[in-house]
């Protein structure tokens, strides 16, 4: 019987091929639109996750002293790890399964001056091995290679020379186009004393060498100052931190802040999906350390606010799009089935007159819709893969709100997402057909056999 129904349904689709084509196109287009937008969402998710975990030093899990995340800038001594605490935690982390690397960081602030003007900075300090690991991680190279690449020069993780890496815009504010090691770096000018900043000659001296001074407070609250050189320029990726961000080696930060203490310890995992498992193991282990700690995973808004905010925006937009597209597709489908029933009223009446049950007719329509949907969705899968490949090959660049750099539009069309969506669409088609059949087939045979008006 079912086989027979399937044959009749297929025949009907072919017989009314124009109508079927239009309904099928509605389903294909709606499906393709959502898959492509989903591909964009996945691209954003991967870009921002990788940026947050590796380039922003958050790690998959970040460990701070209690309230350290909020207060480490104003009370660094109280909210940082001592050497003993660092050793205790690092040793304990060695036997935690799934941990690829443990990163030690100092996060601090101060002023950077060129002798005439001073600008506030926020610095992340790490050891060269860790920074090298972060910037050369396979996921970073695959998903955000442009962002990981320095704008100019070589970082402290790539060279034996000691110095700092500053953002391109901070270098413009400081009038420091020259980097250490460059042939134009005038080492003698670094020792010149600038007496009058309003004189053009002073500006020339400032911009002729890579030397800068860092000023601020050490962890104990005393004044801190240090001379250093700019090794390279980089981008943080965030529009509003491009004017004040600095990367420096841990040793230099320890010298500047007068302490060997650490602000945070981050865990970089082998597998992103094991984050919650590692976090719970970590919390269990921490009970034995007798320390008051805060743990954050990389999806926590407090430690990775840009990721959470940007993704929230994308989710809202996608949900809005998804609801509207599904609404329009379902209405088009209801419309098409309704027309189909109205057009085939006498045909349905005849079938009922020769002994078919209403449930049989309903099944016939449902099978017809599902066959049509299957063909349309399979076309949609192929179309979305082809379109994604085409778009990806164009090398289009686009902005993320708040990002300093444009990024390539790469649509990550995943089969699992398409299959999930196919299931959803099939349910949608099934429900819509069932509903409209129930509404329109509840008529007496004689009424159905009347000439369609």
């Amino acid at each position: 019987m079912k086989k027979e129904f399937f044959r009749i349904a297929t025949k009907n689709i072919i017989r009314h091929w124009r109508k079927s084509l239009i309904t099928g196109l509605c389903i294909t287009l709606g499906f393709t639109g959502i898959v492509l937008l989903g591909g964009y969402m996945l691209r954003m998710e991967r870009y921002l996750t990788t940026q947050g975990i590796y380039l922003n030093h958050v790690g998959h899990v970040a460990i701070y002293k209690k309230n350290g995340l909020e207060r480490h800038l104003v009370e660094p001594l109280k909210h940082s790890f001592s050497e003993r605490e660092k050793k205790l935690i690092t040793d304990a982390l060695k036997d935690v399964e799934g941990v690829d690397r443990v990163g030690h960081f100092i996060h601090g602030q101060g002023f950077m001056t060129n002798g005439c003007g001073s600008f506030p900075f926020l610095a992340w300090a790490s050891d060269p091995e860790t920074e090298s690991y972060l910037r050369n991680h396979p996921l970073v190279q695959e998903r955000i290679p442009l962002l990981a690449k320095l704008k100019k020069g070589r970082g402290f993780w790539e060279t034996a020379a000691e110095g700092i890496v500053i953002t391109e815009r901070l270098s413009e504010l400081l009038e420091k186009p020259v980097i250490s090691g460059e042939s134009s770096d005038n080492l003698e000018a670094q020792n010149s004393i600038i007496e009058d900043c309003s004189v053009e000659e002073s500006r020339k001296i400032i911009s002729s060498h890579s030397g800068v001074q860092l000023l601020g407070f050490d962890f104990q609250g005393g004044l801190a100052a240090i001379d250093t050189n700019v090794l390279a320029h980089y981008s943080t990726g965030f529009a509003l931190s491009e004017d004040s961000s600095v990367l420096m080696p841990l040793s230099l930060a320890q010298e500047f802040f007068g302490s060997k203490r650490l602000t945070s310890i981050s865990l970089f995992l082998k597998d992103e999906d094991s984050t919650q498992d590692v976090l719970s193991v970590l919390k269990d282990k921490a009970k034995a350390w007798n320390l008051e700690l805060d743990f954050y995973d990389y999806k926590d808004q407090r430690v990775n606010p840009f990721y959470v905010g940007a993704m929230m925006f994308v989710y809202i937009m996608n949900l809005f799009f998804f609801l509207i597209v599904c609404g329009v597709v379902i209405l088009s489908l209801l419309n098409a089935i309704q027309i189909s029933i109205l057009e085939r009223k006498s045909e349905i009446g005849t079938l009922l007159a020769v002994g078919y049950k209403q449930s049989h007719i309903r099944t016939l329509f449902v099978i017809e819709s599902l066959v049509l949907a299957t063909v349309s969705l399979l076309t949609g899968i192929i179309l979305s893969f082809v379109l994604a490949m085409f778009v990806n090959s164009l090398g289009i660049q686009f902005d993320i709100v708040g990002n300093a750099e444009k990024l390539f539009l790469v649509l990550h069309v995943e089969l699992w997402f398409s299959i999930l969506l196919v299931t959803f669409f099939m349910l949608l088609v099934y429900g819509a057909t069932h509903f409209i059949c129930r509404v329109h087939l509840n008529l007496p045979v004689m009424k159905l056999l009347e000439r369609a008006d």
Partner: protein
Amino acid sequence: MHTRLFVLRLAARNLRLNYKKSLAALVSIVAGFMSINLFEGYMSGAEDIFNVTYEQRFAYGDLTVHHSKAFKDSVFFDGTSYIAKEDQDKILTYLNSSGEADIISRKLNFTGLITNGNFSTTIMGEGIDVVQTEAMRSPTWTWNTSGGKPLSENVPGVILGEELGRLLKCQLKDGAVFLNPLGGYIAEERTLDCGRPQFQLSSTTQSGQSNAIFLNVSGVTNTLFRELDSRYVEIPLESAQNLMDTDGISLMNIKLKVGVDKASFQKNLIGFTKERRLDVAVSSWKENAFGIIYRQSMSFLNTLRGFFLIVILLIVGFSVVATQTRLVFERITETATLRSLGFKNRLITKIFLAEAFLLSLVGSVFGALLSFVVSYLIKKIGKFYLIGILSEKVPFTIALVPENFLYSWMIITVMTTGACYIPLRKSLRLSINEAFTQH
């Protein structure tokens, strides 16, 4: 006129007679209208929020004037490119004599340190013309503090970014509630306890000397941007000029009188500054470094709109084409009868197009009503959401703008009448005999 009325009456009668089939087309039209209108409404809502935020909350007004070297690609001041007093006076004289500027407020950006004796941290500050800036913020953001009082209620004082306030142990008892979806706080003092009320602000003057001033905390404000919120302070312009030992400013914001043409005013002001050889740039926040987030957001939304419109219009278009084609071909004997009675093809086309027009009109009216309902429900639910770098959630709003209704209706009308015209032409090409025999 008489024929037009006749056509419309006939079209309305036909729609009534074929109401079941027309209903199917109507559903597609309503869905299409609503989709376009809601998305356009979302974009308009976002634009409204940006306008109020930049023009009032950040007090940039309609136009900003700054040194040509300052704020080039950055919202942070380079610390050296001031507008000198002499140049400010020239610009102010011009603005006052033009009679077109409603409010002129000045700003001086500075960097330095803030301490309450226990904690110190770096700051990025703004000195503002208190009275003029408050007028610029009117009406939505006149009261710009979520805790404590604005500067106008407590001169001289200091306003801290909310996050900076937290760092300096300022306790805000109750958070502020927005006045409306565009923002703004209810104008009432909310308890703010900072322990020691007096703060020291220190900085380095242009001549390289250290300087410090003491101010009592007046309130806290949300600067909207996370990166800024933990470093932002706002003080009166005079205090900032004392601290920096300068009479220069970094920015002059101009709000124009209602009805003044912004483009021509900007052109004239640029002409004046060139004539007087003033080294300044005159631009709108939408064009300069301050508006980067606005431009990125609108560019993103525009791209999404293009994508959205293509998908929605194709789906709705197919659906409308399918129903209209069927409606036209089912009535092919009717058109043949009309033609045999002497109706010209042109008149028959007019009747059918009038039907499609009426259908799109009725569909659009229903679509508009449903848009009102959806917009009202969204407003009632009051959903706020986070966007990227913002430190404050923004409301999800669907603005109901007449232009959007008109735009959506026009698209739908063109689509519906087009979908009707193509099959109709085909059916009218058949001879009367063919039409009777084939159908």
